[in-house]
């Protein structure tokens, strides 16, 4: 299989796609990098030129930036904790033999097929709405004041909505991992005197580590770029309370029409994603080895 000629042939075959992928990645990145050092506002297109690090400095000087950074990490971390913990519990639950198991599993997976803006609208108008929402109806039923979710707890609300969307994904991956655990191992543990919690702690959880790692890595990639849910519900507000880094970039690019700053924000986001990825791989990467 790996004679010299076959290796050469393999490289030749792979080369076009590698080159294409490289261009695909490098060109947008290079353009973003280029604009991030330019003065380029759509409202004054005649004034252009190099500005050095001014665009970056603007971000670091802006108090909103640090809040947005914190919000981004809080969103990623919060959703990861909620989806992994609930995902494991739901997976354990729907792994039990029950009638209508197939239908049940489809129901559990359904939220994943709802588009982000639709999901966010459903939550905003049907659940969290202060007059028409289900939650306010429940609160009033108990004689309490309805909670103004999007005004008082905007970040928590966004985390809740995004968790609802991503929970099926985590559940699905964890469920398949759970089903690959041999029942003899659980029976052996039972014979060895391990109760339900000990079995979960010593047998099931270690078996799930690889699946949990996969869930965390994949979700992190997508969660760092969450935008639609915020756009549809809080618009980053009130004030900047629920502005994340992607949303802040959007505000610079579309609201302020400042392409230079938006590009600088984009580069910062890329660096942030790489830092997160580095720590994730260092902390979790070894779980992926056999």
């Amino acid at each position, binding site marked *: 299989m790996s004679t010299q000629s076959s290796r050469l042939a393999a490289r030749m075959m792979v080369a076009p796609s590698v080159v294409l992928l490289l261009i695909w990645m490098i060109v947008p990145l290079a353009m973003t990098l280029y604009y991030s050092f330019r003065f380029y506002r759509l409202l004054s297109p005649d004034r252009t030129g190099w500005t050095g690090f001014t665009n970056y400095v603007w971000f670091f000087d802006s108090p909103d930036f640090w809040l947005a950074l914190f919000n981004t990490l809080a969103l990623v971390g919060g959703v990861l904790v909620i989806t992994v913990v609930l995902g494991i519990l739901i997976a354990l639950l729907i792994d039990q033999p029950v009638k209508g198991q197939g239908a049940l599993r489809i129901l559990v997976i359904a939220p994943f097929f709802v588009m982000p803006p639709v999901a966010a609208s459903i939550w905003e108008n049907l659940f969290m709405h202060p007059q028409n929402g289900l939650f306010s109806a429940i609160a009033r039923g108990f004689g309490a004041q309805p909670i103004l979710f999007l005004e008082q707890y905007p970040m928590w609300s966004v985390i809740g909505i995004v968790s609802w969307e991503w929970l099926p994904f985590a559940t699905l991956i964890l469920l398949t991992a759970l089903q690959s655990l041999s029942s003899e*191992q659980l*029976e*052996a543990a039972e*014979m*060895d*005197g*391990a*109760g339900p919690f000990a079995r979960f702690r010593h*047998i099931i959880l270690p078996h799930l580590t690889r699946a949990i790692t996969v869930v965390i890595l994949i979700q992190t990639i997508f969660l760092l770029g969450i935008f639609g849910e915020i756009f549809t519900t809080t618009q980053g507000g009130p004030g900047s309370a629920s502005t994340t880094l992607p949303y802040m970039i959007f505000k610079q690019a579309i609201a302020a029409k400042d392409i230079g700053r938006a590009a600088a924000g984009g580069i910062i986001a890329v660096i942030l994603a790489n830092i997160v990825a580095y720590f994730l791989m260092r902390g979790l990467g070894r779980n992926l080895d056999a």
Partner: protein
Amino acid sequence: MGKIQLTRVRKSFGEVDVIPGIDLTIEDGEFVVFVGPSGCGKSTLLRLIAGLEDTTSGSIEIDGRDATNLPPARRGLAMVFQSYALYPHMTVRKNIAFPLKMAGMDKAEQDARVERAAKVLNLTNYLDRRPGQLSGGQRQRVAIGRAIVREPAAFLFDEPLSNLDAALRVGMRQEISELHQSLKTTMIYVTHDQVEAMTMADKIVVLNAGRIEQVGAPLELYNHPKNLFVAGFIGSPRMNFIEGAEAAKHDAHTIGIRPEHIAVGEGPWEGVVGLSEHLGSDSFLKVAVEGIGPLTVRAPGEVHARHGDRIRLAPAGKIHRFDKNGLAL
């Protein structure tokens, strides 16, 4: 301390009675082998004793104590699974220590017991490896180690050698037998391999379709099978059964004669050799005998008979006689 008493133990899965009702006494220190064809309920019976399945009715007593509804952990039994069921993320040491840890034993005592078990099973050099880095035989020994550290009232083995190659199987068979000699603990061993049953057991329980066909010492089953099923199941190659006129001569509906109890040379039966297998120490011949049908013959040493040869055969050993219902006369 491991007498196990089953009284009218019944197990059904829905409508299907897998085990319609079994009475069996296993004495303390005995090596009992459950043997039978696949699907005969032998594994289910073992799992009932282990507590991994609920008994539908009847009772299981362990050490004179009713254990029918006790959870597996409280029955004081240890089980070795067919797949070994080692915990892949734990080292050998942690695997063996797991039941001790679950029992809340202190660390020093745990270590001492693990070391002792590892020494007995030649695992001392492998204690810090993971199961994935071990060979089949070593994994098997770890599974046994995990069972012996608990000092259980009885060991349960569920086809423990079926994943090993032939040479290793013979070795592990001896090791398990020696373990039984040194521990003197009750062992219940499930297998479909009658060679394992014959070589290891103090007592064999032959099961068929959830019923006990016969219980007895290996040679007792070989020499005095109670019925056609046991006669056909114990012994390899299997016993020849002859019906019709030849059987009537012996005043029986069916007669059985083992392949090793037929002599080649002179005799009343004549036939054509079909398949012949020459193993060196033995020769197995399939002979189509006129008026009787095909007979398997096991002749010691080399017999120069080829496909198509005509040879004469004579019964040279015990002839087993059975009535219409398949029971021994």
